[in-house]
């Protein structure tokens, strides 16, 4: 049936008005009838058909000037997509043809072969042409004589799409031995290429998780690593950053709906400042009285974390709030065959790198950084040479808290924002800092990336539940063998 109409399309029937019977079927018929009607519209070759079909895919058909709501399910949607791609193949614009070829490369019905061949003959663009050749090969695989099939199988071996693997996997079980051998060879080639894509995808997932862990732990690397404050409220500072992002987003939605996509630019400094201010206040009011008493600090900050959670729950409600992604954070980029890298994760990796760089710069190249390092290494001596150690403590704690706020801003883009958000990251953050070696920025970076990779690798092998357990067990053993972490601070500060 479909065969017939693609042939009809090839015959390039003169433009008719849109067939009313077909429209009625689109509106009223069952799925089989709808697919027939799509085919009928395609056969007419009317340029208007594309518009009608596109509208139909969204669930509307105009019959006798009246819009009728229709139900389009996945099966019908595939048929529409194929039909639209088929129409697009002969379009004059290169972009349309390329999109159509890509759509067909995702797995098209073999009945469209004559159409694809016709498009191939006319095609001059090398990129579209090679795509179409693959499409043609995947169609020829199933039917035709042996020589064509083997040629098609060999050409598929050069492709790197997951779709080719599916096709070749079927051909491996073919009755004919020559075809089987050719298919096995091609399948190995495709699988080799896909395996690289998978490895790259895994690597990216590891870096992405690592960057998130790094963001969550960087603030703690200052407050715990450098200052020695066991800050159990660190997770809640992350949460405050995420809620600040939410408030800014809502503000933008209400006041500048047109500039909504840019709310993140405002949310980044805002979350830094808000979390930083909360941190500085905590330091001045509670923590500074507890320096040198880790147990009390732990209990006090834990209490603060509960208070922060409860206040957020009272203000914003217990349920999660929605932070919408701006357009540039949605979707992904096709990097390798079958591997799509989401933009949100790419941006977060870049953001983590930027924050890391700025922090490194601040700690090593500025006066404040010098003071912070001085105070952490030898408080008395720093005070003797005129450093206002109390003020430095406050700024350093504020900086660590502000970075936690930045982490919250980033996390709001990929996860849920709720009062308990911080609870999920506090364990991970401490794990990263302790694993990397307390007091070491570089250690934190290595530890975050190592844990990111280890987690993702184990997840791909054993599943998420086991991976989590294995990583925790590993950390326990590691800390037992090497309590100072990956990188130990050398010198007399170790005791402090």
């Amino acid at each position, binding site marked *: 049936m479909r065969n017939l109409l693609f042939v009809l399309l090839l015959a390039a029937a003169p433009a008719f008005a849109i067939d009313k019977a077909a429209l009625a079927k689109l509106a009223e018929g069952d*799925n089989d009838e709808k697919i027939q009607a799509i085919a009928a519209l395609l056969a007419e070759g009317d340029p208007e058909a594309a518009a009608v079909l596109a509208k139909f895919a*969204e*669930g509307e058909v105009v019959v006798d000037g009246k819009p009728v709501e229709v*139900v*389009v*399910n*996945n*099966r019908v*949607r*595939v048929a529409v*997509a194929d039909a639209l791609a088929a129409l697009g193949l002969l379009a004059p614009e290169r972009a349309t043809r390329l999109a159509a070829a890509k759509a067909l490369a*995702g*797995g098209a019905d073999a009945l469209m072969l004559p159409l694809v061949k016709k498009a191939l003959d006319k095609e001059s663009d090398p990129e579209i042409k090679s795509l179409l050749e693959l499409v043609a090969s995947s169609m020829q695989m199933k039917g035709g004589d042996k020589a064509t099939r083997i040629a098609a199988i060999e050409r598929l071996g050069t492709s790197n799409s*997951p*779709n080719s*693997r*599916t096709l070749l*996997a079927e051909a491996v079980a073919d009755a004919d031995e020559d075809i089987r051998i050719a298919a096995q060879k091609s399948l190995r080639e495709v699988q080799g290429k*896909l395996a690289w894509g*998978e490895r790259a*995808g*895994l690597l*990216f*997932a590891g870096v*992405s*998780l690592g960057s*998130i862990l790094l963001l969550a732990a960087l603030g703690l690397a200052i407050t715990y690593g450098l200052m020695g404050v066991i800050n159990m409220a660190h997770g809640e500072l992350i949460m405050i950053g995420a809620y600040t992002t939410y408030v800014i987003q809502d503000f933008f939605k209400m006041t500048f709906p047109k500039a909504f996509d840019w709310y993140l630019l405002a949310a980044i400094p805002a979350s830094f400042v808000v979390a930083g201010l909360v941190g500085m206040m905590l330091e001045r009011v509670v923590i500074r009285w507890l320096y040198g008493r880790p147990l009390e600090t732990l209990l006090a900050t834990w209490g603060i974390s509960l208070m922060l959670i409860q206040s957020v729950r009272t203000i914003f*409600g*217990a*349920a*999660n709030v*929605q*932070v*919408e*992604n701006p357009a540039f954070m*949605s*979707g*992904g980029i*096709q990097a390798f065959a*079958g*591997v*799509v890298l*989401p*933009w*949100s*994760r790419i941006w977060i990796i870049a953001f983590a790198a930027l924050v890391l760089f700025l922090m490194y710069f601040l700690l090593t190249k500025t006066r404040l950084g010098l003071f912070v390092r001085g105070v952490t290494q030898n408080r008395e001596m720093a005070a003797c040479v005129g450093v206002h150690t109390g003020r430095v403590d406050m700024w350093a704690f504020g900086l660590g808290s502000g970075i936690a706020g930045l982490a919250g801003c980033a996390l709001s883009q*990929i*996860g*849920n924002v*709720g*009062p*308990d958000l911080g609870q*999920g990251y506090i364990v991970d953050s401490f794990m990263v800092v302790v694993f990397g070696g307390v007091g070491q920025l570089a250690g934190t970076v290595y530890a975050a990336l190592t844990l990111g990779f280890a987690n*993702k690798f184990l*997840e*791909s092998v054993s*599943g*998420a*539940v086991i991976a*989590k357990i294995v990583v925790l067990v590993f950390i326990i053993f590691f800390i037992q063998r090497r309590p100072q972490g990956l990188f130990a601070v050398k010198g007399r500060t170790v005791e402090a």
Partner: protein
Amino acid sequence: MKRRNFVKQLALSAAVAAIGLGSTAILAQGKTVKVGVLHSLSGTMAISETVLKDIALMAFDEINAKGGVMGMKIEPVVVDPASNWPLFAEKARQLITQDKVAVTFGCWTSVSRKSVLPVFEELNSLLFYPVQYEGEEISRNVFYTGAAPNQQAIPAVEYLMSKDGGSAKRWVLLGTDYVYPRTTNKILRAFLKSKGVAEADIMEEYTPFGHSDYQTIIAKIKKFSSEGKKTAVVSTINGDSNVPFYKELGNQGLKATDVPVVAFSVGEEELRGVDTKPLVGHLAAWNYFMSIKAPANDEFTKKWGAYAKAKNIAGHKDKPLTNDPMEATYIGIYMWKQAVEKAKSFDTAKVSAAMGGQTFTAPSGITSTMDAKNHHLHKAVFIGEVKADGQFNVVWKTKGPVKAQPWSPFIAGNDKKKDEPALMAEKKK
């Protein structure tokens, strides 16, 4: 306080002694009757459960406005078990023994239901459970107004196997790691095998509660689906993990036309705030969708919208959404009212006996009937595809209500189990 309690107790025991009547609730509470609402208002399940508390309060308001239950006003007692399973049992005990509620409406996850079950059985109180679940349970103290596996999971998988559903041949069973997904997947695995699906064509994956990084899992699904034959994913992910899951699914461009994902715990409410444009065509199976066109549904959604606005319920006041467990809660509350009025008593045993055969015109437009024996509702099954606006398009439905099979025939040994609760009263004798 203590003295008053003592006086109350004294009066009560005198009354009981004098009349020899067991229905303590009426006498103890005079003109109002207390009912418990036991839903997580915080934690990972709050995304799904908070709204069930609100719809319950709306139903109570409605009933009170029309004169209450047997002339008594309903006085709701709302507690927050905070997605913490042992806390569910604690709060249930508090509701029954301290607040002396006549009935409790609550729970979402099966693990929370399993946690409160011994409490309700020990104290002989009633629980109405409004969510689809894995079956394998009939308690005389629980009425299940959500779907059993044969009213949701099995029809959904059958649909995906059919020509219209895309003739799926390979299956990924993906879930949160607890009793509901594990049992449902056990049933589905047996079902798929009975349909001739090979072991190698089924992949099972679990994530912890609150999991938020679905990169590797989606990569795994992609790989699995490219290894031959049409693949479908059955998702029993629960709670707020669904948001990162669907975000990742959309971002990685896994389209419903290639690999459809059918979910059993994702409805209109869970998809709020997720950009659903890349998710068009992914499926959910329920016994109710907000988009169902029925007069009863128009009325239900209108009432909810007005109530959300009046009570200033976050999110719903601007964009009111209804979903299946909300409908099931609503049905449960009205059926309880009808049963109490039929029994003319709040006594657990009498209300229980009166529940069998109760009918109610559900918002889905179907007349739901409580089974005479097995404590489950007869419900119609709908399968919907996600639309760009976050609503669902119903693409398939059963002809009429389906009787629940809490003991799935796909689990060995279930054929011998009785389709009604074991009577504890008899055991006691």
